[in-house]
């Protein structure tokens, strides 16, 4: 398979847990490398959307297509070479080292120490590579899981992250988003749920705004975060204001 930028198409996606419908007819398409931020209030269906995109949750109606193939029908190994998923709360039972944890990402594609090293370097974990997973802080663990996802794809693919910055301090959040953003240049489509609207606005090229299981907006970031649109979704007042913002690195 020649690595190429992914073509993602979400067609009339419905999903439910038991009797609760969580996604109600989502349609969106995207091709090529970009950082997409999925934003929306709690329980809007952000995580569910991500799990459907990852092929981990079977849609009740509609489908997610990657390169014109429905992801929930892809064999696990094939899927894992094209789609990486970083959950909000990663879990690891065995006392692996950081390097071992990151190397797990190569399960489907086969061992590749250089991909692991690259991923470790990109997430700033090279010095910690020999540490045990449980000795890491929550933020370091988060970065290790992102490194695993980067190692997993190797080349371009669909990279899905659920709140990748939630456990990180500002500095590491910025670093992480920068790494993700850099990754988009080689053709990776990064879809991340991001709680912090400012961060989303600063880094994402595209924003998908989710409300009660419906996609109310999908488009360029600068148009997404209009106060009126956000007020309708988040039900709080928004205001453009000057405030103390960190100096963002060059994007």
């Amino acid at each position: 398979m020649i690595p190429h930028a992914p073509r993602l198409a979400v067609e009339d996606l419905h999903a439910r847990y038991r009797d609760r419908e969580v996604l109600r007819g989502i349609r969106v398409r995207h091709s090529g490398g970009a950082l997409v931020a999925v934003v929306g209030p709690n329980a809007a269906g952000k995580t569910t959307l991500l799990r459907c995109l990852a092929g981990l949750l079977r849609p009740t109606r509609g489908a997610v297509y990657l390169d014109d193939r429905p992801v929930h029908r892809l064999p696990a190994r094939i899927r894992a070479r094209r789609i990486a998923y970083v959950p909000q709360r990663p879990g690891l039972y065995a006392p692996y080292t950081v390097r071992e944890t990151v190397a797990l990402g190569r399960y489907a594609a086969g061992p590749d120490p250089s991909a692991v090293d690259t991923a470790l370097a990109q997430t700033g974990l090279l010095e910690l590579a020999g540490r045990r997973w449980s000795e890491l802080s929550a933020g370091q663990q988060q970065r290790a899981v992102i490194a695993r996802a980067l190692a997993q794809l190797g080349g371009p693919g669909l990279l899905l992250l659920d709140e990748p910055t939630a456990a990180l301090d500002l500095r590491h959040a910025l670093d992480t988003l920068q790494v993700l953003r850099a990754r988009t240049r080689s053709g990776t489509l990064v879809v991340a749920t991001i709680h912090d609207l400012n961060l989303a606005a600063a880094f994402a090229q595209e924003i998908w705004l989710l409300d009660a299981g419906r996609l109310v907006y999908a488009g360029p970031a600068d148009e997404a975060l209009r106060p009126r649109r956000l007020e309708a979704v988040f039900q709080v007042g928004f205001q453009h204001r000057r405030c103390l913002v960190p100096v963002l690195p060059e994007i």
Partner: protein
Amino acid sequence: MPVHQDRGLATVNTAPQPRRWLALGALTLALLITALLRLTLDHPPGGGIGFAWPDPEWVRYRWTALANAVSAGGALGLAGLLLQSLLRNPLASPYVLGASSGAGLGIMVSLYLTHRMGGTALPPARATLPALAGSLGALGLVLGLATRRGGPDPVNLLLVGVVVSTLCGAGILFFQYLVPMGLRGEFLTWLMGHVPQATPPADLMLAASLPLAGLAFTLRMAGALDAGALSEEEARSIGVPVNALRLGGFLLAGLLTAGAVAVTGPIGFLGLIAPHLARGMAGPRHATAAPASLLAGAWLLVLADTASQLLDFGTGPMPPGVFTALAGGVLFLVLLHRTRSWTLDGM
């Protein structure tokens, strides 16, 4: 800010690769030394204890006991590792999850039925099938009842395991109650767990091939088992066929347990301790942890059998099953104390 969660066994687990292979060597050496001990430990009737190469007339019994202990212990150790890895639960073991007592019940039922049909006792090779049915049945029941949305819940699993284990134990007692007095003694002796000294060669081969085949399968699955340490979602997302892995792993664990129980009767705690010892020495990766678990289980049972030759309170050698349950239980409490937070490792 690094979070130092524990300083017990787990610290050893960062052992670099060469040390892990060294650990396998150390376990092999321990097994060989203990085996030599078992072979040469001489306890002549009415005499003291010493060391002597056994007479050719009875050396076969020591070899047979050794072979049985190695294969049954190895099978239990490997089964324990599989269950702990698949369920991501350090307290899982064939014993706790009902597989052992299920196998025991299977054997009891078949013994009872053979007795009812006027037959004699089953040789171990033929006891493997009913034991397998019993262990898989119990394991299936435990997994089925303990599974909540998304997978087996660790606490539920242990609770249901204990209950199913007790149920099977009650079933065993029921069949013991059904058989005439003459057979009860036989059943009871079997229940204490022992390492047989006389086994037909064909049965011995079967018993020995089981853990070897199990090891081969486990090594084939090693990568997936390693990845199985991740949360289910993550494991699936990196391409691990989680359901197939679980099914294959549980079947294998059930088969290994059944084979071991058919040979030795129920041997408690071995399947719990051996994987902990193995991971502590050889690290958590299954390429080394699996052979280490097999070696550790084999070593522990040979050790227990050797010790049981020494422990004779005038009523014959103490059954090794009693010994492993006593010694293993205490050792496990110590391990549990030292690695209290291991359960929470990253979870």
